[in-house]
């Protein structure tokens, strides 16, 4: 029996190590100078840790600047922030109101609309990509932050609606009945009864939407143009097209910088993330 326990912990530790190894390698590589990378193993820890590569990834390398391009990831980080915040608030806000209207009010065709949204969550984004480009272009939002926000709201609303609708369906009907008999209309019922009840789900939806929007690549690539590049797109460009010798330490530092915001949210949110991720996994 004791041998079994040892084997159990052994297996778990090996699995944990294998899953963590790539992240540790990324961090360790980002702290090495290039000479050490060329000379040593990827498993070796940096002998003389330096944040030089991090600085280069964040601020850009102005000594090798092509034209006036001397930007690291800092500008695309700001772009990502400016996309995520409004897109997050709008998609979660719209999803909560829609989910509430579908769950707590009798609207003809509510079930049909919900079914249509649920199926819509599975549509690969590639299928509606070109018409969406035309829509955003006709609105004059192509290549702008507002255009990307709009696209993220369109793509996010099915997921957020589903989360809130399923939660509001579990609220006892008697509670709604009582509030309505007391004369609460659509908005008072939402603000004073339903929204306070839904705080955990609100947290889950915010965390998941933050992760999805921050991690998005396809929409940023398609709708960002030159000026609206989010961090994932900038990272892919940085890694994909480097002139001269490839600087793996800068690549890894840039990767780490891109991963840090969602990683931090994950580590801080713990169980809320786990709760939502299963429901949201179907989303692209």
């Amino acid at each position, binding site marked *: 029996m004791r041998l079994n326990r040892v084997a159990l912990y052994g297996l778990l530790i090996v699995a944990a190590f294998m899953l963590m190894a790539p992240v540790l390698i990324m961090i360790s590589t980002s702290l090495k100078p290039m000479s050490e990378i060329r000379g040593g193993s990827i498993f070796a820890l940096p002998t003389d840790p330096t944040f030089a590569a991090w600085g280069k990834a964040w601020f850009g390398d102005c000594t090798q600047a092509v034209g006036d391009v001397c930007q690291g990831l800092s500008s695309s980080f700001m772009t990502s922030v400016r996309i995520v915040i409004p897109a997050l608030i709008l998609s979660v806000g719209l999803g909560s109101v829609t989910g509430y209207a579908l769950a707590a009010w009798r609207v003809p065709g509510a079930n049909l609309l919900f079914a249509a949204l649920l199926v819509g969550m599975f549509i690969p984004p*590639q299928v509606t990509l070109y018409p969406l480009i035309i829509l955003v272009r006709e609105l004059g939002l192509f290549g702008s932050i507002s255009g990307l926000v709009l696209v993220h709201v369109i793509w996010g609303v099915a997921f957020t609606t589903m989360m809130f609708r399923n939660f509001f369906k579990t609220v006892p009907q008697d509670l709604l009945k009582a509030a309505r008999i007391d004369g609460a209309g659509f908005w008072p019922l939402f603000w004073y009864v339903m929204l306070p009840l839904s705080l955990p789900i609100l947290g889950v939806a915010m965390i998941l939407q933050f992760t999805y929007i921050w991690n998005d690549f396809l929409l940023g690539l398609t709708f960002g143009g030159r000026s609206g590049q989010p961090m994932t797109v900038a990272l892919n460009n940085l890694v994909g097209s480097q002139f001269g010798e490839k600087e*793996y330490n800068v690549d890894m530092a840039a990767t780490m910088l891109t991963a840090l915001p969602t990683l931090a949210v994950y580590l801080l949110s713990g169980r809320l993330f786990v709760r939502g991720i299963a429901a949201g996994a179907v989303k692209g």
Partner: protein
Amino acid sequence: MVEPAHLAARRQHPDRRWWRPDWTARVALIPALIITIVCFYGFIVWTFIISLTRSRLLPVYNFTGFDQYARLFANERWWTSMQNLAIHGCLFIGGCVVIGYGLAILIDRGVRGEGLFRTMFMMPLSMSFIVTGVIWQWVMNPTLGLQEAVRDLGWVTFEFNWIVRQDRSIYTLAIAGIWQQVGLCMALFLAGLRNVDPNIWKASRVDGIPVWRVYLHIITPMMRTVFFTVFILMSAIVMKAFDLVVALTGGGPGFSSDLPARFVVDHILNRQELGMGAAGAFVLLCTVLAVISPYIYFELRKARGAH
């Protein structure tokens, strides 16, 4: 916020009126309704229409019937990508299910530091496919990565250069993909295992059945629906897989690790083959629907039941 007259009217007929739809509820649904009708289903129809035309750089509406589909099915790169989807799909889903279930069982045996292990197993999930692709591209780098590290340890004939080999690059996608998604499968399986009636364990202990047999013959058959959910979720991820290919292999070497989702985006955005790209997108959609329709059927039945 509520007008007194309005309120009074309600009070007069509370029984009849308490459930009456407020017009506000209908108005509140308008944005979602527009998005669903226009941006989901309208745009699918639009893409289908484009796929019936000769459109190249821009949509033109001179119809050619199903010519673009004929061109698509005669396109070697399309078939490579479809074949890759099948290979990658089987490896990725199979790997996630087997490893994820294994990890869930290990954790379910009751270990200390369960939270810590779970946090570590699920950490890759919070990172984007782009980040995952870039990390693994570095780990699998043939000159400075894992291959070289193992050779330095003394195993000089060790080979792990799949990422630059035409006949192996597709497998690297599964490695990186499983790494990222296995934590999700683990979490879903673990939730399922925690729902198992504890009396089953008590009874099997009384009967002296070995633990592995309980899992294999009793618990696993009980987890049918969890397996089904995991399969559907992972299939949905696989069929949309675009970012990971772009960041890890760029579809290469050549088109040896191309996937349909990347084929479609490439033809629509870069190759000025809008018509064929739209045809590919539509075929992709049909594939997705074929796989997930049983799931949607169950979900909707559940939703109706909860009503």
